[in-house]
């Protein structure tokens, strides 16, 4: 059975790259282009892990995480992959309930290893 990963990312080229990288690892990818779409997919597709950007139109990554943790009461692993690099941003992401905070740019191996580590079997 393939692990199902939800990617929430509004930047076209970057999203495509992440999809390529994770597909190479054998994961099934669902790509949402903003936070609202991400929440919809979370409910409908039942992913095993979420990778989310922070700054996005309609609904930000942070708000999406807060919703998933509070409203949906889910403990699904969530990785933040953000261009915001300050310690404050990192703290607010983790406080909202993210499992891991990765700063852009990060290497492909770091991203892949982090995903594996956070999946239930890992």
């Amino acid at each position, binding site marked *: 059975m393939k692990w199902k990963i939800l990617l929430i990312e*509004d*930047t*076209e*080229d*970057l999203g*495509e*790259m*992440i999809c*390529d*990288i994770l597909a*190479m690892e054998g994961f099934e990818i669902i790509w949402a282009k*903003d936070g609202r779409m991400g929440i919809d997919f979370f409910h409908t597709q039942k992913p095993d892990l979420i990778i989310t950007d922070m*700054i*996005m*139109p*309609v*609904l*930000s990554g942070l708000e999406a995480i807060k919703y998933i943790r509070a409203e949906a009461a889910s403990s699904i692993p969530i990785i933040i992959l953000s*261009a*915001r*690099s*300050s310690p404050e941003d990192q703290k607010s992401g983790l406080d909202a309930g993210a499992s891991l905070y990765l*700063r*852009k*740019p*990060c*290497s*492909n*191996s770091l991203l892949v290893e982090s995903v594996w580590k956070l999946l239930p079997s890992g």
Partner: protein
Amino acid sequence: MFRKIKDTVANFFSANQNFQLVKELSEKLKMANQKFDWLTRASNEAMRDCDLPSGTIIWNHGLQSLFGYPNNKEINYTTWLSLIHPAERDNVMGELTNIFASRQPMWSSIYRVKCASGSYRHIFDRVYVLYNENVPMRMIGTMQDIDERMMGLAEIDRLSMVASKTDNLVIITDPNQQIEWVNQGFVNRTGYSLKESLGKTPRMLQGAGTDQATLARIRKGISEQRAVTEEVLNYTSQGEKYWVKININPVLDEAQNLLRWVAVETDITRYKEYESKITAIARELSDLIANANAIIIGVDRNLYVNEWNAFASTATGYHKNDILGKKIATVLFHPMDQKKIESIFTKVLQGELFHQQELAYSHQDGHQHILLISATPRKNETGEIVGLIAVGHDITELTDYRNSLEERVKERTEELKIALKKEKELVEIKKQFVAIASHEFRTPLSTIHFAANFLSDHLEKLAYEDVRSKLKKIEKQVVHMTSLLDDVIVAGRTETNSIPVMKTVVSLRQFIDKLIEDVKNTTHTHEINLYYDVALQVIETDEKLVQSILTNMLTNAIKFSPQKLSIQLNVQQQEDKLTLEVIDQGIGISEYDQLRLFEPFHRGSNTHSIAGTGLGLSIIKKAAEALNGSVILKSQIDEGTTIKVILPISV
């Protein structure tokens, strides 16, 4: 004397028997006797003819009128001696013995004689002595009653007893102001001895400097026989000036007849010198007040003005005559301040000091002036507060200057605050820039990194097309980053004229179409509806700047209207102007943000979830200005934004 005449007559009779002649002579003798008797009656003197060998004395009526003895009383030489006052009798007898022995014809003496009443009277006795071959034969003389004068002298003695004890100058004159006596004090001060002074009048003390009006008052007082007190400048025998306070009193007898004058003088020279010094000081002070370069005002206990110097007149416009006797507060101060002024001055009148306070007063011309004033209580010689003296300076100019200075300091402070605020904002903007720039660069960097990693990790497994698409991605991100960098550089330029303008001929329609295509290719999401109404085929402009303007206008519109997927672009020519207008129905810009919209790196408060540099609008504005154009922006939050750039065109 008449015995001699009798003898002469007797001899005459014996020698000549002519009866008729006798009768005539007898008549003449009777007449002579009569005349002599009248003469002695007319004088109040006792006359006596003493036959010294027998001792018999023939008296005239004076024996009765002077001494009270009846005319027929036998008073011979021996009896007379016994009537002399025992204290003086031996003296008189001794003197007479000496006279007779030395055969002197004249003798006089003052002594007391016992009257019929038993009391003694002072008499002045003058006699003429006749000798016959060195033997005294007759003594003829008069006795003058000098009792009154002697009593007066005794009084002078008593007065002088008192007067001699004092340092004051005492002068006693007769009713005609002839000096009868002066004391030692007088002698010491004037340099005139008692002997030099006797018989003279006090006029000898007066000189050129003696005030005539004062003397006239003294003379008037004397003529009215009343006491006089004056201050007189007198001169000593050496011509030295001295001041006396003179007190002249008439001495009257019981019947109010003037007996003499007594003058007591106090030497007030030093007092006068002191007084003239004080007067000089007072005059100086008064001159000082009058001419001082300060406002000097005096008020009495009821706050009525009683002092007003020349400077006060100049400073206030009120002349002395306008203000003396008026209430200070009502004339000089604004009705609103009057109570305050009166309460301040009342406190001073209770002894408080009022030091260097600023009060506003009204000049006569109606202008407000500022007075820097100090006030002190004014006291009389017993220390009682009778008013106050206030000294003030008109510091209106100074106050104005101070106020303008304060105003300037305020302005400068304000400017500094603004500068500081700007500086802070700049720092904030720079911080923001660093954050935004790092974010905006990190995203394309991230894509490049992933792509490069991906290629190196899986190169051997990848198909040629895959490799090519990844390399394209990298290339595209590099182009994006370069244009981002260009934006940052343009936006960072502080002066619009530092943007170089390179004009070329541009075919406008083709240029617009290509630009729309490029934008669509990078964003993919939105439709761009074009309304094009430009008659000109070509225009002359800086293609790069116009491109920068339009690209930013369109990408902004697309970025900030994520819910509404179409954008309107209007390109129109209005005479010699080209207008580029982009209308979206996006999130809009708040009024607050609109104020700072064109500052580089400023981002709207509702844009946190949308990536961006905050450079777009500032680039639009700077580029438009470099082309002598302008930017108009209208926006309503949640309804959308319309931005219009107007550029001048030349063919």
